[in-house]
């Protein structure tokens, strides 16, 4: 049976990753450990002593961990959708290369999202494993937080891929982290509930995918309710993914088929 082109693109990325995995695997394991140690245990003991956990109704470490998980898939998805996409278009031109074969731009786009899904799935599995090791979550629940966190990552992969597909130079790459990812990381409920923000900032969090990802991931992890109906949060994330993917498909075609 013939494999669809997008599966062949995923296979290609996996083979390239086999050569370049070392750096990213170390950070995939190390980042959650460092963050949970520093913020969860270090800062967390202050929060808990200061009465923060009473207000949160959970120990700070347990409250924080699912938020960091959602942020981690956002980071991985964003990183995988920026440099590799731009490289494929412009630097090593692997996309141009693939298009000389039966592969189409649609295959490239679907293959890209397929590969990003695998990458953030890996990030999520490792992160939840670390959470289990830290005792913030039970194994059974850990399996349940993987889907919302992966969907949250994909909600970023969509628009970021579309953005990366039409970038002309690398200054636009760091701008994404500087002006989008870092502020979201800090202000989307990862470290504290967004109710702690000034009132005017709260609606900003509502329209960013990370907040919805944090909400759903945390709700599953802690067994609490989401702010709004879970279906609504999931729908927002799916909408970001789909809108981004549709744009990415258009931009890939426009840029590569001239």
């Amino acid at each position, binding site marked *: 049976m*013939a*494999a669809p*082109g997008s599966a*062949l693109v995923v*296979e*290609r990325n996996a*083979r*390239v990753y086999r*050569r*370049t995995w070392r750096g990213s695997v170390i950070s995939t394991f190390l980042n959650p450990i460092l963050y949970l140690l520093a913020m969860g245990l270090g800062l967390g003991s202050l929060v808990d002593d200061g009465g923060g956990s009473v207000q949160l109704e959970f120990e700070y470490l347990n409250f924080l961990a699912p938020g960091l998980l959602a942020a981690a898939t956002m980071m991985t998805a964003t990183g995988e959708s920026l440099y590799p996409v731009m490289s494929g278009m412009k630097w*090593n*031109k*692997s996309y*141009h*290369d*693939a*298009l*000389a*074969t*039966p*592969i*189409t731009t649609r295959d490239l786009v679907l293959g890209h999202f397929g590969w990003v899904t695998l990458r953030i799935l890996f990030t999520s599995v490792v992160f939840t494993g670390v959470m289990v090791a830290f005792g913030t979550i039970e194994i059974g629940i850990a399996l349940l937080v993987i889907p919302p966190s992966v969907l949250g990552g994909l909600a970023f992969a969509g628009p970021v891929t579309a953005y990366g597909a039409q970038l002309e130079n690398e200054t636009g790459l760091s701008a994404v982290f500087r002006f989008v990812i870092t502020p979201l990381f800090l202000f989307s409920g990862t470290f504290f509930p967004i109710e702690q923000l000034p009132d005017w900032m709260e609606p900003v969090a509502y329209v960013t995918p990370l907040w919805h990802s944090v909400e759903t991931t945390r709700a599953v992890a802690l067994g609490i309710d989401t702010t709004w109906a879970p279906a609504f949060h999931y729908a927002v994330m799916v909408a970001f993914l789909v809108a981004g993917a549709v744009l990415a498909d258009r931009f890939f075609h426009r840029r590569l*088929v*001239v």
Partner: protein
Amino acid sequence: MTEPLVRATNLSKRFGDFTAVDSIDFAVRPGEVFGFLGPNGAGKSSTMKMIGAVSPVTSGELSVFDLDPATHGSAIRYRLGVVPQENLLDTELTVFENLFIYGRYFDLPKSVIRERIDELLAFAQLEERRHDLVDPLSGGMKRRLTIARALINQPDLMLLDEPTTGLDPQARHALWDRLYRLKQQGVTLIITTHYMDEAEQLCDRLVIMDKGQIAAEGSPRYLIDRHATREVVELRLPVGHSVDETQFDGLAKRIEVLPDRTLLYTDSADRTLLDLAERTLDIESTVVRRSTLEDVFLRLTGRSLVD
């Protein structure tokens, strides 16, 4: 007569206001080596990309393997071997991995790809570099690897865009040798080049392109016969000597005065030299050579520099 593999009628490619390919007609027959010869910007690469079903046709008709690239792009590319102008290799991967991944794009079974890689590495003389990264390979090796890679699907038609540009003479000749062998195996080749010797060596038929149009078409020999004379006498005059064109009147079919030498285009160099000897002209040296495609090319596309 056999059906052409590629047939173009009034084929055009425009980018906004710029016309890269301007209503050209050509047909490529199975088994032949067909060349697009032309200066930079003549429209050769744009034509190649349309044949390769990666760049949409703006107007006119194009069929490859009797298929329309607009609707059957993947099916066409499945049977093509493409060697682009730049070596688009994955420099972080090894020689083997580059070939393997490319083979997988054609959805070839892994065992088949492994077998073919053995043959192709021998063909490209890269057996010893099998597990080396691509980055440190020489330009000639990368080019051979790119050609080997394009052969992984055993294509019926190969598109080679300036296959030897930037290579040293040894590497060029090694490549020509490989291309000859492909031709002998019955692979149809379409080549773009701006090297006349390459076109003369390799091509059964070629078109000379200039400013998006076809300026002439035929076999190298035919084009030389048609657009140039059999031989050329090159005269070098003493430095500072101003040339009076009329002093060569009647010596040749065509006379071209260049800053450093004067070219006499003639069907008989012996005759011209004899005639020349009768006129007591101050000539430093003479060189007789056969006409080449270069003469045809310069005649048709002019001597001014194209950027």
